[in-house]
């Protein structure tokens, strides 16, 4: 009898996570995470009574700390999304190319179970890093600038959803593109969408193409910034949080379907 789907998925996902943990890139990620936290610590250490001069007027650092916090949190969230994409971009393709997936798929295992387990394994690393980096940063910002923590939780969830979309799409892309091309696509995809989102949030028009990207692409940057609105004044009243949540949810479903359809079509060992 075929083992239960949950047993199969759990066994494969645990192994995929362990496999991801054993990769040589993991210590590099840990060092980057530590450097990011040191940078956040350095950027927030002047909060309190310090003042800056803006156009000849003295401004308390606390008045601009919400904006600083939003910027720091958004950049770190984008870093987590890129990390998720890069890790996913060869976590499945590697096993298909070297043939080690064949033995697993010769067992009573669905391709969808295998692909989703590999996705979960690579996301495990990205999420662990994200939780550490974003929660410590949010705590430092809360402690030193007094920004509310609740917003950071919503922003963290938005980041997790966006990272899921990036990872699933990167994994699908890695099944049809070479490893380096898939990794470069992740950088381009996240960078371009973040740029369009940022311009749109401040009401800057990027022409027809920019509007299409803003309208239909996953709201990677917008979702995080909108969640952090309590830290700043509303940047763009046209952005409705409920629509943002719906868009992210639809992109999560679509990205998984794209991944599964690509893997189903992929011929193994030909």
């Amino acid at each position: 009898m075929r083992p239960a789907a949950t047993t199969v998925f759990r066994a494969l996902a645990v192994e995929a996570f362990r496999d991801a943990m054993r990769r040589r890139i993991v210590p590099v990620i840990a060092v980057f995470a530590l450097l990011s936290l040191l940078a956040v610590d350095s950027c927030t250490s002047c909060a309190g009574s310090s003042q800056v001069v803006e156009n000849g007027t003295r401004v308390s650092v606390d008045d601009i700390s919400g904006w600083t916090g939003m910027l720091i949190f958004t950049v770190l969230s984008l870093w987590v999304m890129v990390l998720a994409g890069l890790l996913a971009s060869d976590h499945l393709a590697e096993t298909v190319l070297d043939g080690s997936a064949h033995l697993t798929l010769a067992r009573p295992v669905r391709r969808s179970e295998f692909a989703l387990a590999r996705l979960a394994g690579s996301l495990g690393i990205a999420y662990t890093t994200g939780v550490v980096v974003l929660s410590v940063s949010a705590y430092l910002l809360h402690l030193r600038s007094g920004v509310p923590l609740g917003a950071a939780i919503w922003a963290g969830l938005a980041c997790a959803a966006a990272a899921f979309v990036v990872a699933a799409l990167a994994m699908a892309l890695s099944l049809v593109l070479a490893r380096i091309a898939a990794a470069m696509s992740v950088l381009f995809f996240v960078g371009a969408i973040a740029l369009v989102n940022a311009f749109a949030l401040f009401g800057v028009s990027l022409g027809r193409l920019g509007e299409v990207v803003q309208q239909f692409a996953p709201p990677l940057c917008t979702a995080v910034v909108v969640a952090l609105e309590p830290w700043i004044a509303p940047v763009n009243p046209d952005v409705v949080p409920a629509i943002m949540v719906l868009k992210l949810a639809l992109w999560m479903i679509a990205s998984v379907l794209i991944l599964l359809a690509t893997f189903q079509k992929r011929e193994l060992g030909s």
Partner: protein
Amino acid sequence: MIALELIGVSKCYGSRDALRGVDLSLAAGSALGLLGPNGAGKTSALRILLGFTKASAGTVRLQGLSPRDPASRVGVAYLPERLQLPGRMTVLSFLKLHATLAGLNGSELERDVESVLEQAGLSARASERLGSLSKGLTQRVGFAQAFLARPKILIMDEPTSGLDPIGVRDARDWILAARRRGCSILVSSHLLSEVERTCDQVAIIDEGSLVANDALDELVEPGETLEDAFVRLVAK
């Protein structure tokens, strides 16, 4: 009962025909040796049977089901030609994972893993990373995973590749033991003497077409070896 069958199966890779209308079946409890020159289409046939690739035409059944259905692979074990194991895993964790996927759990899983480790002479290597093993030992791990959970169907592609003479003899003994247990075996091999010793049926594929498919003693004429019969049929 039929363990597996290909009916009129063709497979094209671009303009190249890897298989042309191949009919092949394996009765439960039988052992079929699939022979053919390099590039004849043997590996393509095995990949189609396991659902790794789709046939361009024809019908494929594994335990009466489509190979795309995971239920068709319950009780099926596979040993590929170019065995690639996840190098970052240890021998033990790899076998435990496959035992779980084969449907074992708890103490039954522990017992079975221990038994195949011992059978394959890998007990002392259980904690070593798969990536650090020699080709011969890697092949032994491949055999160990194939014999987990007492499979009903064994599909093997060049199973003795990379094994030393003792390993080849051990592999033959394991295959014969599986046969005695009633396991159906499909083995693709260039080692005709091994096929002669382990199989009761032989199918020969040449340039994608089936040129012979018969009981071993029907295929080999009096005074001939299997090698003579192979050369005679392929050279036709």
